[in-house]
């Protein structure tokens, strides 16, 4: 009965709006429409819920854990929705020497008023404690040269490094580097603090976790003492776990949710965009994110992939235009890599010079290269993939197989169960070729690190002295000019050698109802909640 009445009321409202709107034909002034309004609850759909609430534990923090804590916790620095690194609870920072950083904290930053922290002020001891948790955590990789963290006074933190790290400040904005209150953690058997359970979620972020029902929902309320005056505008946010995309759209259509974000680097499937647009009031927003595109790889320490002519031939087999039209109707770019497309270090194809020709399909040239490499009849290879990234991913593997087949690289698709994929293929233990998924990471530094010999994500077994020198040079650069020069040179070498063959990168799709104002999709990491801080309900 309630639903019928609501439906009737909505219909009447639409009719009235049409009549009145038609009569007046005068939209509200834009400035007035864009004035933030306090109150209201935003309802968000996500595909999964957090796996614990600790980003500095023994295991790599799940994406959904990072998202949840972006609501509740602060970092020293954070990304803006457009990707710039700005202070979060840091007031200012200084670099008195190449390996020393001194960060001054904002005063009056209060934790949530939940026991046992009870709304006390954040101090440098909390930051020190957080960084003391780093050893043994996967996040240690972000700060390989960190030597010591001290708290000389209540609001000052001093970081000493063993070598310069050009990405030290940007890495503090990673969506894993949240500041934890020591007393909020539970003492484990080994005496260490544990932040797995929802009761330990006490931060200084814009929202307070009020309720967590596993596989159902997270309920956040506004942090009334949030340090950014006047924000957030919303009274609360409810994040519902809805794994199925059709069910998410149905919930948006029936008014149960307001936002389907692309916060996990996936977004709505392009094929579902027309359905999303048909929902009254729904808008489909597109975004280009800090994500390198799916790519084709092989082991560089094994034949035939060790021969650059074979890699170039494979690159020439890819019909990027066809790929984009067939799979990404909402828009795509020809590639995103080896640094992500929105990065200032990304080199677009029209400025890439000679290597740009390998990104345009040329079957004849590809076959010629294979002949030169000693494969006049092509060769057979395994093409590894997994169903772990959804059925669409497997379809793209099949498309890749077809394209490679046109130049004589006869691949047989080997489908690996996801855990096996993670434990073998993803670690670089594979034969033949592999279709690798897109990567969402933080600063460019994270991508560069994956090309160092011995890095667990160096799936391609790259050991190129020049690349190693450039990566290390960029990581230890003492100024931006040097860093930029090193990274751009790295990008040039990478494209010339085609260590990875990057495939087209789609724009990501966010669906938002027009009653939600001020929400802009974020471009970096798993940080869409920062955009929610500036959003409101009309």
């Amino acid at each position, binding site marked *: 009965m309630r639903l019928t009445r609501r439906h009737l009321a909505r219909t009447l409202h639409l009719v009235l709006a049409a009549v009145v709107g038609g009569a007046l034909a005068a939209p509200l002034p834009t400035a007035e429409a864009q004035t933030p309004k306090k109150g209201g609850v935003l309802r968000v759909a996500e595909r999964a819920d957090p796996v614990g609430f600790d980003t500095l534990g023994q*295991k790599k923090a799940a994406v959904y854990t990072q998202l949840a804590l972006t609501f509740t916790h602060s970092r020293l620095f954070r990304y803006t929705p457009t990707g710039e690194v700005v202070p979060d609870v840091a007031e200012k920072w200084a670099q008195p020497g190449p390996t020393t950083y001194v960060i001054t904290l904002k005063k009056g930053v209060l934790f949530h008023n939940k026991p046992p922290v009870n709304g006390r002020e954040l101090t440098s001891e909390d930051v020190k404690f957080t960084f003391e948790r780093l050893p043994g955590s996967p996040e240690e990789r972000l700060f390989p040269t960190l030597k010591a963290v001290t708290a000389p006074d209540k609001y000052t933190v001093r970081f000493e490094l063993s070598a310069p790290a050009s990405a030290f400040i940007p890495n503090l904005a990673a969506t894993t580097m949240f500041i934890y209150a020591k007393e909020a953690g539970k003492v484990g058997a080994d005496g260490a603090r544990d932040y*797995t359970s929802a009761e330990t979620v006490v931060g200084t972020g814009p929202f307070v976790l009020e309720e967590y029902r*596993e596989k*159902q929902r997270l309920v956040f309320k506004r942090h009334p003492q949030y340090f950014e005056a006047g924000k957030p505008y919303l009274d609360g946010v409810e994040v*519902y776990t809805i794994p199925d995309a*059709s069910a998410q759209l149905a*919930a948006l259509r029936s008014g149960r949710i307001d936002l389907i974000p692309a916060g996990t680097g996936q977004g709505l499937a392009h094929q579902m965009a027309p359905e999303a647009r048909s929902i009254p009031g729904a808008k489909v927003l597109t975004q280009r994110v800090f994500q390198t595109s799916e790519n084709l790889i092989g082991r560089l320490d094994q034949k035939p992939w060790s021969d650059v002519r074979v890699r170039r031939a494979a690159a020439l087999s890819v019909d990027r235009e066809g790929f984009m039209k067939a799979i990404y109707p909402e828009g795509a770019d020809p590639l995103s890599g080896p640094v992500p497309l929105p990065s200032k270090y990304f080199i677009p194809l029209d400025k890439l010079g000679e290597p740009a020709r390998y990104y345009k399909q040329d079957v004849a040239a590809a076959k010629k290269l294979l002949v030169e490499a000693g494969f006049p009849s092509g060769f057979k290879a395994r093409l590894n993939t997994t169903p772990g990234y959804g059925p669409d991913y497997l379809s793209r593997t099949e498309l890749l197989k077809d394209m490679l087949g046109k130049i004589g690289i006869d691949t047989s698709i080997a489908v690996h169960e996801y855990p096996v994929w*993670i*434990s073998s293929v993803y670690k670089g233990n594979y034969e033949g070729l592999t279709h690798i998924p897109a990567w969402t990471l933080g600063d460019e530094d994270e991508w560069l690190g994956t090309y160092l010999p011995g890095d667990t994500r160096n799936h391609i077994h790259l050991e190129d002295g020049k690349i190693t020198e450039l990566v290390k040079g960029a990581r230890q650069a003492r100024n931006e000019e040097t860093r930029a020069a090193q990274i751009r040179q790295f990008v040039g070498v990478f494209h010339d050698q085609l260590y990875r063959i990057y495939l087209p990168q789609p724009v990501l799709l966010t669906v938002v109802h027009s009653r939600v104002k001020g929400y802009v999709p974020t471009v970096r990491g798993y940080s869409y909640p920062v955009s929610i801080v500036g959003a409101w309900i009309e």
Partner: protein
Amino acid sequence: MGTFLARRVGLMVPTLVLVSVMVFAVMRLVPGDVVSLMFADLGYAKSLAEMRARLGLDQPFLEQYVRWIGRLAHGDLGRSLWTQRPVTSLLAERLPVTLELTLLAIGFGVAYGGVAGVLAAAWRDTPLDAGLRGTAVAFLSLPTFWLGTLAIVLPSLYLGWSPSIQIIPFGADPLGHLAQFALPAALLGTHLGAPVMRMTRAMMLEVFRQDYVRTAEAKGLAPGRVVMIHALRNAMIPSLTIVGVQVAQAIGGSVVMETLFQLPGMGSLLIEAVAHRDFELFQSLVLCLALFVMAVNLAVDLAYVAVDPRLRSAGR
């Protein structure tokens, strides 16, 4: 009846032992270096040795098994390696959802299958019979995930309504709670009920040809009484057998419904346990599900006895 029950329960014990051995062995027979996966990629321990010790894999197989059974006997189902939560608390949250969904689906399937089967048999070779048989074939052929998706998308398109996106507690809103389960249970139930309908119809036609039915009709009993009292009771046993077999199928189907309708039950938990190689959780879940299937089959066996008095005397 008591002897029959004792014998059936007694038979469950070796079955349960066999299931427990199989479940326990599966973890140790899975191809690939599972322990290194759990240690290195999932971060379940700080070292390979700690991971092996944590799983008890540093002990002889038999000792591992005996210890596991010992812990089970004390109600200790272990702790999820992925979420760090006790398995018992996960079960307490998830099991009621699956039980409710499965039992409602079976109830719906039996009601639909039974009624439709009887009607189709009573009006054999009429348009009603053809319609009911066609519907049953359709329910049997259409995948539940497709039906479920339609059941979510179509009402949202034409009525602006979609199912609740969170569990409505029974205590807070009993009707709302039941309504939330009704749609997925009905969809699952139609799939389960279709074979019941076909079997019931076939058996009813068989029974209609029996002498005692003809006698009942000849002595002037009302057609409804002949069908419901004399024919149906004798036609029910094969249908009950099908229901027993379908419990496992219902649990499998509940995984899809749980995902589509945001019902956090055992099905999705089992999938997650497999995906995360969370064997501590996986072992306990499979054992619980096996126990549930066995319990339902026991209930079906008892129903045989209630329906057929000859089995009661045979059981003595």
